[in-house]
């Protein structure tokens, strides 16, 4: 078995949304391993995004521990979390979150410029097969292309973990497959620990492990004996 990257214990998260209190996570225990491709599956409001945000150092838990290697993320300072995100984590968002005023290359550069040993933006874009559209602005790219820029942006810093929040959520099936292929390619080629959130059950077949979440709790963890490759998927 590979070494443990994340060790999560009794994780709870309560947050305030307007005048409503939301119990997003209610006691999560979980281990994630190096190089593993994990899919978090669950309905809307099951707590997937909250878990991912906490793993990515975007948010802090209300109770419980999150260990990244030997670092306790749940007790990290704002500054330490920033450093953690800057040097270790790559993010891919459902709605891409590209900066509209920057071209594809510049959107990647915005990350490589602050990273420790990044690839060239061109190189990262080549990995997602977007070398042709490198100087296009987000508004000139299709949804799938935008998401691939987002992936290039996430991997360009050579992150230790790649966290993807519904990367295909806004895409049609065909484009979604292209994006998933890119993710799988990176996971295999660079050995990056990858966590993908989805509510699309068919994506689960390409994962090493599938974690089912409901109502802020883990319902089931399943290990795939036979992994499918991304192009074999359809929905």
């Amino acid at each position: 078995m590979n070494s443990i990257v994340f060790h999560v214990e009794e994780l709870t998260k309560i947050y305030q949304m307007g005048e409503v209190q939301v119990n997003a996570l209610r006691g999560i225990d979980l281990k994630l391993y190096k190089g593993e491709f994990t899919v978090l599956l669950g309905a809307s409001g099951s707590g997937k995004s909250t878990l991912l945000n906490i793993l990515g150092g975007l948010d802090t838990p209300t109770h419980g521990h999150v260990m990244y290697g030997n670092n306790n993320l749940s007790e990290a300072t704002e500054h330490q979390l920033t450093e953690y995100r800057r040097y270790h984590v790559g993010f891919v968002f459902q709605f891409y979150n590209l900066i509209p005023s920057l071209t594809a290359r510049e959107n990647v550069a915005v990350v490589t410029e602050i990273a420790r040993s990044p690839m060239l933006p061109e190189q990262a874009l080549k990995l997602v097969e977007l070398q042709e559209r490198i100087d296009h602005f987000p508004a000139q790219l299709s949804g799938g292309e935008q998401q691939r820029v987002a992936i290039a942006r996430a991997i360009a810093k050579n992150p230790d973990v790649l966290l993807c929040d519904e990367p295909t959520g806004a895409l049609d099936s065909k484009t979604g497959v292209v994006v998933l292929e890119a993710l799988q390619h990176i996971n295999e080629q660079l050995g990056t620990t990858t966590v993908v959130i989805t509510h699309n059950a068919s994506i689960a077949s390409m994962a090493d492990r599938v974690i089912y979440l409901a109502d802020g709790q883990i319902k089931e963890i399943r290990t795939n004996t036979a992994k499918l490759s991304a192009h074999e998927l359809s929905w």
Partner: protein
Amino acid sequence: MLAIDKKLVRELWDMRMQALAIAMVIASGVSIFIMSLSTLDSLYETREHYYKNNNFAHVFASLKRAPATLIKRIQEIPGVNKVETRVLAYVNLDIPGFEDPVSGHLLSLPENSPGLLNSIFLQKGRLLNPARDNEVLLSEEFAKAHDLRAGDKLRAIINGRSRALIVSGTVSSPEYIYQIAPGAMFPDYKRYGVLWMSQKPLAGAYDLEGAFNNVALTLGKGANSQDVIDRLDELLKPYGGTGAIDRADQLSNRFLSEELKQQQTIATIFPLIFFGVAAFLLNVVTSRLISLQREQIAALKAFGYSNFAVGLHYTKLILLIVSLGVVVGIGFGVWMGKGMSNLYMEFYSLPYMMYVLKPQVIFAAAAISMTVAMLGTLHAVNNAAKLPPAQAMRPEAPAIYRMTLLEKLGLQQYFSQPSRMILRHIERRPLKSFLTTLGISMACGTMMTGGFQEGAINHMVDVQYNMIDRSDITAIYTEPASRRSLYSLRSLQGVEHAEGFRTAPVRLKFEHRFHRTSIKGIEPSGSLMHLLDSELNRIYLPENGVILTDYLAELLHIKPGDMLIIEVLEGNRITARVPVIGTAKEFLGTNVYMRREALNRLLKESDVISGAWLKVDSMHQKDVYKELKTMPRIAGVIEQRSAIKAFYKTMEETILFFTFISTLLGGSIAFGVIYNSMRIALSERNRELASLRVLGFKHGEVAYILLGEQAFLTLFALPLGMLAGYGLCAYMAFHFDTDLYRVPLILGVKVYAFAALVVIVSSVISALLVWRNLTQLDMIAVLKTKE
């Protein structure tokens, strides 16, 4: 360039109109700051330089006649450095081809020299030739007004005798930077001039050979001016001294000092308004920009950008906008400062103007703008920096709206749904609505200060020359004369009425306070001089006691019923205690009024007068001047109406300049505030408005919701702005008040209307610009993206 900086530049370009509108407001603040301060520095520097180079005296004294040898004893007064004795005479002039009465001061000048003290600055021609006794030098402004050059001729009534004079050159003098006839309100270069003549012929004409009637002196280092003045007064008393004055009380210097004080007021208050408005605008725009970029901020943070880096990113954006404003403001401020300095140079008789732009002024303008901008946006930028990344990923919680006050009062049936949207939107952000309203009010208020100055001058002139002084001509005698002299004046053809007055220089004393002025003895029920109360109703002088100019009473802290001590500075130098009966409204000077007969009694003299006010049939006005000129006893003739006209002509340019600047400044605030508010409202309500369009609302109906709110705030701001303008003008009027003149707080309907008009026009222009964006609302795109 770093990618994040490219983002900055492109976003700035996208919001260029908004950035420009803010930069304009900052530029306005910076430019008025630099204009006022550089003008102030230039005037100070030029005056200092001029005074120093031309040995402007520290103490001045007039007397009747003293032997030239007295100069030695003056020099012996401890603290005195240099002394110059002179002959000074008030004369009537006769300029060929100009029929109005012209008066002037004639000063003696040592042979072939510009004078030891108050040295003249030769502009054209040459100094006086000692071999000729009929040469004069003219003040540059006077020569210009009459187009007189070296070699031209004019006549002067010197001590009752008409003499032909030849112009040898034109000059400026530090003593007459502000050239104003005694008792006049404004400089009038056509009807009042200063002339210099050789000592010998002038002294001869006035029977002052080997004598003098005026002295100027400078003080040594560390000398106490008051000590010197006291000793000088003591020394000159037997020679008819009327009291020495310090440089600070010298008329020309006083006017200039007051002008500088006014500049200082302008330099403090206006930049304050502009920087306040700029800070508010930056806050609004930055807050909106940051809320639009929540997801981008989240993404940047997710990639590991620190709070500091995110904060710095937006700070840079703000500094870029501010820098643009500062650069434009400096350029414009220098331009206006130079224009203003040149106006002053022309308005005053300054031979040159050294435009001074101190680096610290520029530095201060930049530093203040940056600081204010930073303070204004601190909150917004801090919020952006602190935005927790996970929270930034979630859409903003929906804005909370509530029933408005009007609806709670049960008035909702009177409002359509769109109108309710407007009201709720305004009520939801009360602070922002209030600040927007305040910003527009300030624009309106700033506008009013331009019109105020013009209106104030009109009112001053109207009250002073139509209600108080109702005469057409004032004739001043060389010496007090019997009241019977009025008969000869009344007998002149065209003179409808003549009223004598007695005037004498005095020093007033109440408790520990002193004031130098002159006392006027007037006819209690005369028709040419009315004293007015604060409501501008006529008041009558009682049998005994005095009435003071209201401002003088304030200066002395004296009130009706108190006893005023009057020390007369001529003749027998009588000191008397008289009761104060009341105060009179006057915008000009500080006067003490008494019944003429009572003043004659107080001075222990018979029925004498110092001059007369005349009411003249306008048909015969010219003839009356001609006759008066031939009368040896008449030292000077002042004709008010043409002087006022001439003043308006000289003021026209200045007033136009002020109106132009205040309109520009007010307009830039109005546009800056209104345009930005509309753009932000559009950006905030983009989805809402697009949804309404999808539901079948027309462009106009959607525009109503957006622009209606702004229109409502603007209309609400107008009365508030008029109030603010009134306050601003009151503040200025209060700071402009001096014992030389008071600026009345009179704001005509025109002033209010013009200010309102500019604000409304600015709104309409903003609305037209935003209308374009409104017609381009992308209904599909707006609804497709999530929020």
